[in-house]
């Protein structure tokens, strides 16, 4: 971040700019005046991100994901499918993991949001981050922030006794094992296919804490 609320020009920015220029040039000339759209509804939103209070005025349509990435420039959280199918946007809200793409920012007044940026720093990694590096739990890395946020919350869910589909006895306390982790992590897709290393990283982190 450069402190002005804007990202420095990046390769991505150049690509986006280039694409929109092409789109403008190819607009058909209809000869009709465009009717200006009604101003979109915008409302103030206050919540906490990684321990810091934030205050934004947002179009009601803004998802929590877009608020984090586009307005707060916390680009660690990724947009994959934008429909809750891939898990790249997973963040932890009030202690629970959710898909930030399927939640409006205005639903989160007063909430405590934790993103990958709030889990650890390059100098002081969260144990889950360190384990992902040690076990090569990624290749391209795009799904990794979502995988790590999800994995941290999964271990909390197991500790809290949240049951899963692979339990034989639904009344029993769940245990930490590879089958459980695979089932519980099924909302996070990794197209590189680093799953077995991801499972090992989570297992090791769970063991270290147990």
């Amino acid at each position, binding site marked *: 971040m450069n402190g002005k609320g804007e990202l420095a020009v990046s390769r991505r920015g150049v690509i986006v700019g280039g694409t929109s220029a092409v789109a403008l040039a190819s607009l058909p000339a209809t000869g009709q005046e465009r009717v200006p*759209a*009604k101003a*979109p*509804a915008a*409302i103030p939103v206050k919540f906490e991100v990684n321990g810091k209070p934030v205050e934004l005025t947002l*179009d*009601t*349509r803004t*998802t929590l994901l877009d608020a984090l990435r586009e307005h707060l420039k916390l680009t660690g959280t990724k947009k994959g499918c*934008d*429909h*809750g199918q891939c*898990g790249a946007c*997973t963040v932890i809200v009030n202690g*629970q*993991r*959710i*898909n930030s*793409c*399927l*939640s*409006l920012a*205005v*639903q989160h*007044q007063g909430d405590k949001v934790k993103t990958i940026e709030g889990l650890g720093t390059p100098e002081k990694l969260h144990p889950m981050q360190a384990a992902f590096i040690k076990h090569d739990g990624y290749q391209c890395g795009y799904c990794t922030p979502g995988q790590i946020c*999800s994995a941290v*919350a*999964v271990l909390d*869910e197991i500790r*809290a*006794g*949240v*049951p*899963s*589909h692979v339990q034989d006895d*639904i*009344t029993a306390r769940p245990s930490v094992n590879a089958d459980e982790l*695979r*089932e*519980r*992590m*099924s*909302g*996070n897709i990794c197209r590189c296919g680093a799953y077995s290393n991801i499972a090992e990283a989570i297992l090791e982190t769970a063991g270290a804490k147990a």
Partner: protein
Amino acid sequence: MKSFTYERARTPAEAAASVAKIPGAKFLAGGTNLLDLMKLEIETPTHLVDVQDIGLDTIEDTAEGGLRIGALVSNTALASDKRVRRDYGVLSRAIVAGASGQLRNKATTAGNLLQRTRCSYFYDTNMACNKRQPGSGCAAIQGFSRQLAVIGTSDSCIATYPGDMAIALRVLDATIGTVKPDGATRTIPMADFHRLPGDTPQIDNVLERGELITHVDLPRPIGGQHFYKKVRDRASYAFALVSVAAVIQPDGKMRAAFGGMAPKPWRVEAAEAGLHEDRAAAMETIFAGARPTEENAFKIPLAQRALASVVAQTRS
């Protein structure tokens, strides 16, 4: 996504009145299905009434010995509740068989009941779909129908009700409590809540405009062994091809409701007495009148085998 205004209601009655008053308004609870559909402009509400502050987020014992589940109890909280796991295992099992951990944390009990079909023709706005755009036709009937319904369908629509939780609620004889905009309340049995498509497949259930689900009641526990068997194309995070919610008593008598087969949870009580005597004949009665396509005819024998596998588990 179309632009919309937003408010937070403070009470159930206020929420219901607000949705009834504003044309195009909708309730917003977890939002996991609604937001998905709004991004595709399949749902285009003009105004959202967020119900997260109206309470209704606890599970209470009832005087009748059952449980009252608040409409806003999350799927995770419901599946995790000790009483539900002990006395209504089929419900916990059905919930954890559905969606992903992230979605179950945000999705609510009422929202789960109100989720819309995942028929790919409903989702593809370039395709004819009577449920999305009444009168436009049904591209699914002549299309890829492998996932779609085999019974309870019409010439207008062959979409399934996609959920898991509701299949368990149906087998448990749950009832749904609502409040209307004028403050009146009513109780709807699960059997009557979801509609068959007929000529109006755009109407999924019997709720009136502005009518808000406040709770789901479970009757006294019925004992027995509880099962939810879900057959799908991958082992996790996929919708059912076929699912069966079953409660089997020590004498072999059972209840069974099926998911993935119909536009609503499919249960035929009249045929259940026969399920432990002549299961094949009883299953024939349960699916009598089915009109499968060539692509989804496999679901009928698959449902029989899913139930057989559950019955086999009771002996072990």
